């Protein structure tokens, strides 16, 4: 069977090119690897190599022809011992094909399974699986006061006792007991095989952790703060989040990247910022940002057990705050479930992480003025529990989203957009956002205070959407 040499595609975007020059003539014997022609594209002049051995029987496109479409037959090769008598038929067929350039490359591939122009129907984007409302803490459960820090440590320790593939790695997590003392006591109980101090090498150890998850372990990778995770973001986004999809589901990466995120106090721009929206924008990750100690514990335990890569965002300022934590042997909360932390009927305030504290303070102040705010703690940022947010907004018809972070391309802008799509008819006022100011974090105490969200700013926004002054 004679071999048809077609106009090659030389780049992912090339559709046609100029056949600048033939370097072989009709009748020449050629072998694989020989340069037979030069082609010019808008980017470069490229050489065309022969792929097969044989005799160059016919050249079908003359030198200098422009806009030769990719896939058009440009020459015919006869293999050793083949008869020239079949040539005419092939040439005629090839010429007919080139008359219909738009179908050129595909004309003989109509049954190749490759969908051509028929626009495929876009499958519906699946909604985040709705988590049923269940009582999270059984009535009558004894509660103990615990700091967020202690709750996080207990969550890790309990999961490490339960599953010996769980281990912790990061800077100062072992001997130093954690830069913020979140891993206090873990080295003593679990030893240095499972509580691993790393060098200061975030990109490297985020990759090593991801590889360990690929190899069947359940790593908890601590970033001393999430500011440093930007050194490692390629490992998190390109390696951890996408591998399962790129592998057609053959890979699982059960890993937790955790550490403090958000503004700290008086440490200026590089050590004080909220990266939640960055991670929450990435398909293939789950992103959790709890506020209370109980949620921190129940969600961290769930994250460690989850089969997916998880970004678990803590808050340095909240580490030392105490909350009621249920005294249960195994307290695990569902990922992807927001929580109404204060009931109210006049306005919904949506918040997460430390912003919940500001929202609750604002709600107290508003109550004194006769405005009953409902406060929704998102807890998980990806997947977002819009069901809970929409249910609240349907009731209150007003919404203020509070975020201790920048306003642009943020969780609060996402919530606003989703409310437009999902609750427009229920809104009596525009969804309004209260965020940090759109600047790098300032150092000076007065400027930093101006930059941050505050209960006062939230109160003002709520009054505006309630049309009160």
């Amino acid at each position, binding site marked *: 069977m004679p071999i048809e040499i077609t106009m090659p*595609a030389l780049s992912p975007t090339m559709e046609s090119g100029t056949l600048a020059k033939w370097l072989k003539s009709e009748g020449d014997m050629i072998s694989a690897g020989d340069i037979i022609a030069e082609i010019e594209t808008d980017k470069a002049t490229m050489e065309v190599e022969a792929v097969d051995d044989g005799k160059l029987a016919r050249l079908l496109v003359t030198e200098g022809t422009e806009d030769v479409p990719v896939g058009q037959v440009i020459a015919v090769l006869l293999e050793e011992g083949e008869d020239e008598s079949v040539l005419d038929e092939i040439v005629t067929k090839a010429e007919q094909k080139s008359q219909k350039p738009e179908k050129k490359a595909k004309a003989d591939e109509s049954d190749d399974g490759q969908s051509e122009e028929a626009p495929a129907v876009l499958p519906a984007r699946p909604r985040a699986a709705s988590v049923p409302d269940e009582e999270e803490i059984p009535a009558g459960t004894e509660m103990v006061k615990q700091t967020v820090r202690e709750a996080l440590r207990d969550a890790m320790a309990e999961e490490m006792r339960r599953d010996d593939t769980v281990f912790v790695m990061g800077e100062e997590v072992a001997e130093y007991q954690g830069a913020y003392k979140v891993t206090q006591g873990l080295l003593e109980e679990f030893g240095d095989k499972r509580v691993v101090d790393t060098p200061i090498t975030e990109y490297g150890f985020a990759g090593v952790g991801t590889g360990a998850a690929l190899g069947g372990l359940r790593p908890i990778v601590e970033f001393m703060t999430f500011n440093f995770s930007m050194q490692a973001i*390629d490992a998190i986004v390109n390696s951890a989040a996408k591998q*399962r999809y790129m592998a*057609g589901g053959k890979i699982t990466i059960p890993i937790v990247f955790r550490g403090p995120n958000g503004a700290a106090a008086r440490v200026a721009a590089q050590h004080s910022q909220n990266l939640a929206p960055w991670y929450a924008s990435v398909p293939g990750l789950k992103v959790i940002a709890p506020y209370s100690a109980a949620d921190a514990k129940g969600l961290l335990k769930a994250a460690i057990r989850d089969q997916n890569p998880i970004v678990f965002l803590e808050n340095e300022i909240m580490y030392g705050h105490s909350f009621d934590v249920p005294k249960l042997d195994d307290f695990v909360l569902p990922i992807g479930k927001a929580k109404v932390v204060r009931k109210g009927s006049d306005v919904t305030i949506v918040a997460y992480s430390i912003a919940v504290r500001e929202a609750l303070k604002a709600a107290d102040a508003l109550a004194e003025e006769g405005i009953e705010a409902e406060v929704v703690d998102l807890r998980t940022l990806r997947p977002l529990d819009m069901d809970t947010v929409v249910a609240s907004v349907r009731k209150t018809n007003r919404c203020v989203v509070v975020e201790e972070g920048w306003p642009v391309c943020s969780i609060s802008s996402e919530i606003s957009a989703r409310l437009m799509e999902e609750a427009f008819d229920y809104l009596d006022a525009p969804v309004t956002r209260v965020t940090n100011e759109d600047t790098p974090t300032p150092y000076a105490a007065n400027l930093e205070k101006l930059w941050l969200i505050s209960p006062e700013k939230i109160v003002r926004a709520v009054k505006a959407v309630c049309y009160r002054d």
Partner: protein
Amino acid sequence: MLEFYRQMSLIRRFEEKAGQMYGQGLIGGFCHLYIGQEAIVVGFQSALKKGDGVITGYRSHGHAIVTGASSKEVMAELTGRDAGIARGKGGSMHMFDPEAGFYGGHGIVGAQVPLGAGLAFAAKYKGDDSVILAYFGDGAANQGQVYETFNMAKLWSLPIVFIVENNQYAMGTSVARSSGQQELFRRGEGFGIPGKLVDGMNVLEVRAAADEAVAHVRAGKGPLLLELKTYRYRGHSMSDPAKYRTREEVKTTREERDPITFIKKRLLEDGETEETLKVIDNEIKAEVADVADFAQNAPEPDPSELYTDILVES
């Protein structure tokens, strides 16, 4: 040796076909061919045992094939079909077959190196005696994360062999134009990792070096770095005009150092017949033709696959 010849020829013919199909528009995106470098992956794989792992960069077709994936699945991945090794969702640069010990297929230059160290960390943690091979190129050898990984691999004495496939050009930039210190096998010295230079065009030397390295690492003696001098005949990817090197350089290498010509000559000297090799050649030709046909006719993924395999649904 006959098996070396068979595997190397299969990769060569497979890649030539892939190049051809790319030219026909049947394969999209980036497509980096392994032609010229076949001896490395074939030599190393023959030194491994079940349970060992392999990870590499984006020039991954050869690695996928020799670790156990069928050439059919690899070609169907290149054409973006449901029967592909990653169900058409990964493409040329992202091939995975974890059951066979092949952990990708990674598109970001150098990112596979810490992942490989993580696999080695897991092997050591679990207490099995498996070894991980982490392949990367001369270009990746200048990535910072590679050195972060060297440091941790030595610190924790991880069972990993770092393999630099030095094909001498990182895309269009030669080693001489990108590296202050061009003896890449010495790049581990500052971390306490011994290195060795190996002729990557000679599959027998590759095998001998692999045996030695794998035994060293399996015995718990810590990581090693091997530099395999090799050459890629084709461009960096299919869209490479290759103006950074002369045609003579490619031609001379091809004529004088070709790894398949080398092993063929050795086989004939050892008494194999041209006929035996011809039989193998014909089998491979038929396999590749069959594979190409399969990969063009297999169905594309169903549109509903767009939203699957993102997360493990619990």
